[in-house]
């Protein structure tokens, strides 16, 4: 089966610009998660979708970040306007059910804000 895919793999933008990251989960996975790893730090949870609904967005850093999952399939994470501290690797993961189900991770998008 196809895995979780993310686009783009790398993005370099200037401070103040807008960037949109995309995640395509494994087909049939209702749960979709966004995580971020800032260089040298731990991977941190951003938010969790169940189908098209935001189940938990407690990890979103501020209102410059907007996540959507229209139709309950792919998801986008928009950063507007980007700041230097937004640089890092953004991971997406998906799982079929809650509870014991493992999360399958995508390759990540490396975002660099100059």
């Amino acid at each position, binding site marked *: 089966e196809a895995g979780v895919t993310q686009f783009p793999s790398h993005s370099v933008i200037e401070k103040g610009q807008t960037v949109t990251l995309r995640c395509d989960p494994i087909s049939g996975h209702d749960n979709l*998660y966004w995580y971020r790893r800032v260089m040298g730090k*731990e991977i941190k949870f951003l938010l969790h979708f169940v189908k098209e609904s935001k189940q938990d967005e407690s990890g979103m850093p501020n209102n410059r970040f907007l996540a959507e999952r229209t139709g309950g399939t792919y998801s986008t994470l928009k950063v507007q306007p980007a700041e230097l501290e937004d640089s890092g690797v953004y991971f997406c993961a998906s799982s079929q059910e*809650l509870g014991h189900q493992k999360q399958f991770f995508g390759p*990540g998008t490396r975002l660099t804000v100059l």
Partner: protein
Amino acid sequence: AQSVSQHNHHVILSEAASLELGCNYSYGGTVNLFWYVQYPGQHLQLLLKYFSGDPLVKGIKGFEAEFIKSKFSFNLRKPSVQWSDTAEYFCAVNRGLTGGGNKLTFGTGTQLKVEL
């Protein structure tokens, strides 16, 4: 809030040496525990997981981990490492359905380098 500590940030071993990576978590309730690995240029993938039952769990590629509830620990072990085990290893925890959802809390990761 729960947190996860991985005490070894960088580990260098020779092939055939034994490996133990430490992981401690802070949450006092029921937890699910995971070890993920990221090989160079690859996705994060699950090595093993513990939900309940036998506290000694076996994963892929000869890895195992032991859950010690009294010590809030879930250390990863492998008796004899190979050069191909060079990767970054992440311990992670979630509270599952009853404790607030599926979001994973990760440690900072341990970079393992195995030398020939």
